[in-house]
């Protein structure tokens, strides 16, 4: 299994701040990666680098073994549609559909037509006047119909209604199965999309907090909840990702898996041990409870 995308010790700084800080990552060819994390965590920057629209300040990015920046043959195999994509003056959907196949050798007019119909995108209205949902719909058409070997979708769900999201999922899965490609998808709708992912990466403050296969997610963390005193004691020498407290009650999301010793001690102290969903995990990693440096130490 080759890696479609290889990222090694990549940092990207803008002025004083780092959008990405020492990120290393591989995305196997043909897999679907879920890129999760808070706004400003670095997801868009990551995709921008993979799409060759930007260069890292340090480290390197490789797509199919080549650096994508200004690389014509690699770029023809990548599509990256942003959530804030600008379209040329007075463009309408027809203009987009006319020029897209020129740049996307695998373009499928059938998929495009199906998506336009299902997402109800107006034909002749200037894109400038599109609603947030309609803009996302155009991005989805470009992203999926291009059948690019590396497809990067940045928050494709913004503004889409539930029916549209379902429809997008179904078309994505179907076309991906029929025409395999590597997909990286960033979203805040974790619960809705997690079934799609082979792999999940959680970013926070420009760093990778988690990089695991989907099936390993349940064992990444657990929740300890109950009387504050009990929970504090049980969590004392463990890494707490996030915690939620009212007087007397605490719920703590803890890194790692609970062993039988912890389970029985929790039972004795009247605390509950429960599993954590991916959505809760993402929220926990974004919670700023523990300093990143401490987390690094704990994992090592």
């Amino acid at each position, binding site marked *: 299994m080759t890696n479609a995308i290889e990222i090694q010790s990549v940092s990207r700084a803008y002025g004083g701040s780092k959008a990405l800080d020492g990120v290393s990552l591989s995305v196997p060819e043909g*897999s*679907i990666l879920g890129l999760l994390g808070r706004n400003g965590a670095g997801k868009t920057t990551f995709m921008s680098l993979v799409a060759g629209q930007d260069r890292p300040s340090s480290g390197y990015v490789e797509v199919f073994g080549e650096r994508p920046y200004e690389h014509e043959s690699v770029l023809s195999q990548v599509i990256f549609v942003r959530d804030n994509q600008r379209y040329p003056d007075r463009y309408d959907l027809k203009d987009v559909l006319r020029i897209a196949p020129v740049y996307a050798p695998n373009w499928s007019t059938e998929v495009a037509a199906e998506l336009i119909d299902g997402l109800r995108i107006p034909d002749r209205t200037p894109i400038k006047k599109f609603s947030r949902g309609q803009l996302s719909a155009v991005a989805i058409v470009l992203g999926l119909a291009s059948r690019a070997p590396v497809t990067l979708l940045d928050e494709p769900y913004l503004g889409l209604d539930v029916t549209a999201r*379902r429809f997008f*999922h*179904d078309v994505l*899965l*179907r076309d*991906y*199965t029929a025409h395999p490609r590597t997909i990286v998808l960033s979203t805040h709708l974790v619960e809705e999309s997690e*079934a*799609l*992912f*082979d792999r999940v990466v959680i970013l926070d403050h420009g760093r990778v907090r988690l990089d695991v296969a*989907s*099936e*390993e*997610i*349940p064992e990444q963390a657990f929740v300890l909840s109950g009387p504050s005193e009990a929970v504090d004691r049980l969590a004392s020498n463990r890494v707490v990702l996030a915690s939620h407290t009212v007087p007397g009650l605490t719920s703590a999301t803890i890194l790692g898996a609970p062993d039988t010793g912890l389970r029985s001690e929790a039972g004795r102290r009247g605390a509950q041990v429960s*599993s*954590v*969903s*991916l959505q809760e995990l993402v929220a926990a990693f974004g919670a700023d409870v523990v300093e990143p440096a401490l987390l690094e130490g704990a994992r090592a």
Partner: protein
Amino acid sequence: MFSGETPVFQQLAAQIADDIVAGVYPEETAVPSATDFAAFHRMNPATASKGVNLLVELGALYKQRGVGMFVATGARELLKKVRRDEFRAHFLRPLLDEARVLGITRDDLHQLIDEEERDKP
């Protein structure tokens, strides 16, 4: 559909297994392909494949090249045995723990079981 308790592919395998035991998929008949399961449950195809392969490894399903996945002969018994092995941990242990908390003795339990079976419609 699938919660976050255990890996999704295991949950899918468990659901297919339950359906086999319940008779939804008789032995020597075809089950939907992994791709169809993926589309149906709206999940990643690789994950669905993993789930199906679990049952293949177990011997409950087998692949007929060019045709599809079939329920193996003896799959029901096989899967029932697996569930029997898990019965103690999944059902008995929690039952006994709960009984202890509520102060229900072993004899009480036997009586309750008899009553329940008798009153069953």
